[in-house]
């Protein structure tokens, strides 16, 4: 069973031949008993290489956040300590053993978190205006995501090395390509937020912005804007998060408010959002369907679902497909080009599903960074 070096027998007395024979035997024994360990070291090395890349991303995020705050906020003190504290910020989800009322508990926590973020950013960058404050917050959130990814991978790497457990290392090594894609996406998000460029996630907001541009804008709910637009002889209430600062606001609250203002007399609601594409699909592909297409923790989606159920209002959705990298980095051409397609499809849907004189709601969901109204 032990592999033999061919023809070695012919030089039986030869020392070199014996050395090679012994080496081959040793190699065989080593692979039988330590094969798994060698495999583990190869995996550890792979995780280590990715970890070094993640560390560079994390440091880049921290550095970008500090330099942006210094440049836009002109703080009197060095913001480094505050940025470091922000990167380590933790938030606890509400207890779900008794799920009754958990949505409102979660909403309250999210409100507290947002207020806390805004206060922190204001303290770090006292000279920045509202738009710049929102963009700095976006940059800090990206840096925070990179910091978290780095720390989680480092945790499994160190734990795997300490315990020498193949399974700990293996589970992180297997998902590493997906994690690296996400980290690279957040790394490119840094530049978009720092410079205030529109991102892929803002596709829904851009559809609404195009529809409401040139009409009278009013503020509705928190950080949301709405305009009353006449489309195909229908009254459309178009709404989006207020731009051009980084903002996702509360679209659910705004939709609920408009439904209540109209005493439920809304013929249909159309929600437009960016959505994760499957591999093989093209970025910027548009799909239509039904339901409340609002991402995030689910609070806003829940509010809309409650209101439409009360008044039995049909909800339609359009999604613009993109991957995670496109969602948080500067809007690519294909996604921008999809905006006009969505507007055409909205008009078609309105003509097919509503009558002249009806009232409808068109909600553009997504981050309004770099998108005015």
């Amino acid at each position, binding site marked *: 069973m032990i592999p033999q070096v061919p023809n070695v027998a012919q030089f039986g007395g030869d020392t*070199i031949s014996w050395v090679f024979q012994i080496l081959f035997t040793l190699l065989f024994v080593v692979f039988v008993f330590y094969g798994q360990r060698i495999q583990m070291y190869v995996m550890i090395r792979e995780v280590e290489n990715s970890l*070094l890349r993640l560390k560079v991303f994390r440091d880049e995020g921290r550095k970008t956040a500090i330099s942006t705050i210094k440049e836009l906020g002109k703080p009197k003190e060095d913001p480094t300590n505050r940025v470091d504290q922000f990167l380590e910020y933790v938030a606890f989800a509400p207890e779900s053993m008794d799920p009754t009322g958990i949505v409102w508990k979660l909403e309250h926590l999210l409100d507290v978190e947002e207020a806390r973020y805004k206060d922190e950013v204001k303290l770090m960058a006292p000279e920045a205006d509202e738009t710049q404050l929102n963009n700095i917050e976006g940059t800090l959130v990206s840096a925070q995501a990179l910091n978290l990814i780095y720390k989680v991978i480092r945790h499994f790497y160190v734990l795997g090395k300490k315990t020498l457990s193949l399974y700990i290392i293996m589970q992180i090594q297997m998902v590493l390509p997906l994690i690296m894609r996400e980290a690279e996406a957040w790394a490119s998000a840094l530049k978009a937020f720092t*410079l205030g460029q529109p991102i892929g996630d803002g596709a829904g907001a851009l559809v609404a912005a195009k529809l409401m541009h040139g009409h009278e804008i009013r503020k509705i709910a928190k950080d949301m804007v709405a305009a009353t637009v006449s489309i195909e002889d229908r009254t459309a209430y178009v709404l989006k998060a207020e731009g051009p600062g980084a903002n996702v606001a509360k679209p659910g609250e705004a939709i609920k408010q408009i439904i209540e203002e109209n005493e439920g007399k809304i013929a249909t609601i159309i929600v437009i959002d960016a959505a994760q594409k499957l591999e093989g699909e093209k970025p910027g592909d548009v799909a239509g369907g039904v339901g409340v297409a609002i991402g995030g923790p689910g609070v806003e989606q829940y509010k809309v679902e409650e209101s439409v159920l009360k008044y039995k209002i049909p909800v339609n959705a359009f999604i613009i497909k993109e991957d995670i990298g496109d969602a948080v980095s500067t*809007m*690519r051409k294909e996604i921008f080009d999809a905006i006009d397609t969505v507007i055409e499809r909205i008009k078609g849907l309105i003509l097919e599903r509503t009558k002249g004189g009806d009232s409808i709601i068109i909600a553009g969901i997504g981050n309004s960074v770099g*998108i005015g109204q």
Partner: protein
Amino acid sequence: MSEATETTGTREAKQPTRRFSSFLIAVVFVLLALSIIALMQAFDMYRNNPKSMDYVTFMMIGLIGLALSTYMLLQTRKKVLQITLAIQPVTTTVLCQKCGFKNIREFQRGDYIFKEAEPCPRCNEKTTIASIIREVKEKEKVREERI
């Protein structure tokens, strides 16, 4: 304008130097020495009896060992790796609503979609930023698209 130029090219970041154990380097050197000995043995055998093909085994072992040890030695070089973050160019399109004049330029900090921009050079009317986009040059995926 300096902001705009930052949006093209690549960003580079230095990565810490990787260290290797002296034990590993010693093993690599032993492998290198054995490979050289195997090659010398193959040469001796060929010189003594060129018609016999026995030298081939030693020559192969020697060459494989030599390639392996050289590769491992090259890997242990104390080089500072560079990690690059590719940044695609971002362009802003300024459009005159009146005469349709279009100006495509590099993105500048402060630009946002529907922002009022510089007056139109053709009709002197107000212009607005119509788009801010990133162009991605995808590698050819002919086979993938066919599926």
